[in-house]
């Protein structure tokens, strides 16, 4: 089993030989669907070798020019956002949305504040 940290959160998936995943797990981790043409999202497909119905998600992520890193044991992986993805999200000037917990663990989502002005600020104890 591997722990995969994605834009959607943390998931535990049955990985083999690095980050080879079944088609359904690959879709959960990436949001892309395995089809005969390759890994597809909307109208775009990226050709990719498939072995026994499994795909090399780390290689796929690199093909997309997005960062992929793992610990030495290959047990924990991060499928990061690409620079272009982050830049494009900001370029439209719509505030990127996020959900984070408060001290009591209650989640709060930025976009729930539509209709109000928001002063979004960061700080730290360190």
């Amino acid at each position, binding site marked *: 089993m591997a722990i995969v940290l994605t834009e959607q959160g943390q998931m535990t998936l049955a990985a083999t030989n690095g980050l080879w995943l079944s088609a359904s797990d690959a879709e959960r981790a990436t949001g892309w669907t395995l089809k005969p043409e390759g890994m597809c999202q909307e109208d775009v497909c990226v050709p990719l070798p498939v072995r026994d119905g499994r795909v090399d998600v780390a290689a796929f992520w690199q093909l997309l020019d997005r960062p992929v890193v793992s610990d030495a044991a290959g047990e924990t992986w991060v499928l990061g956002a690409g*620079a272009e993805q982050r830049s494009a999200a900001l370029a439209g000037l719509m505030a990127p949305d996020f959900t984070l917990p408060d*001290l009591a663990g209650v989640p709060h989502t930025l*976009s729930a504040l539509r209709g109000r*002005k928001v002063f979004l600020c*960061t700080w*730290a104890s360190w």
Partner: protein
Amino acid sequence: MPVWQQLFDGLKSEAFMIVAVAEESRGGEHARQWIEQAGAQYWCLIDTEHRVADLYGMVNVPQAVWIDEAGRIVRPPENAGSTDHFRLMDRTTRTLAPEHQAARLATRTAYLDAVRDWVLTGRHALPADAASSRLPRITPDIALAQAHFRLGVWLRRHGNAGEGDAHLAEASRLHPDSWNMWRQAADLDEVGKASGEAFWQRVQALGEKPYYPPPEV
């Protein structure tokens, strides 16, 4: 945080919210005392993975983004009213000359006044082209740094400090402008280290460059 509560107190009848995000990889308990002491009534969120800094391209604290009623960024990330006067501090007595204290306070007050003015009148919101030109540039190195940072924090939290620190160091190497990454890694190593000797050396190495670029409000 107390100054943000004052700001919030004065704007309670407005359609306005403060979202204060603690970039705190050690978790909420390390932020609790400040939030409670401030009596914060606005949103105080805990961001162990520094996701907000990642999404908005922030590199230091405090930084702020102004977002209008439609969810649009009208001021991209900027220093939220802090100044570099701390660099003039006498580090043995930890004191700052009165004139520097006064100048620091004046800058912070001016910034918070500008926030208040924006909420009440809309002033200081940047037109789209000006806002766009101030957006941070996210490079492939920064994107890779974010992945290493996230993995480093995760490994640290799960008892693998050695490997975690290597990923945190790689993150800082790839994204040297991020004080958040460097100082958070120092803090995870040992509480207090984020403002220790190595921090001061790093600040000194800035030379003429500001640690807190003055907000242009």
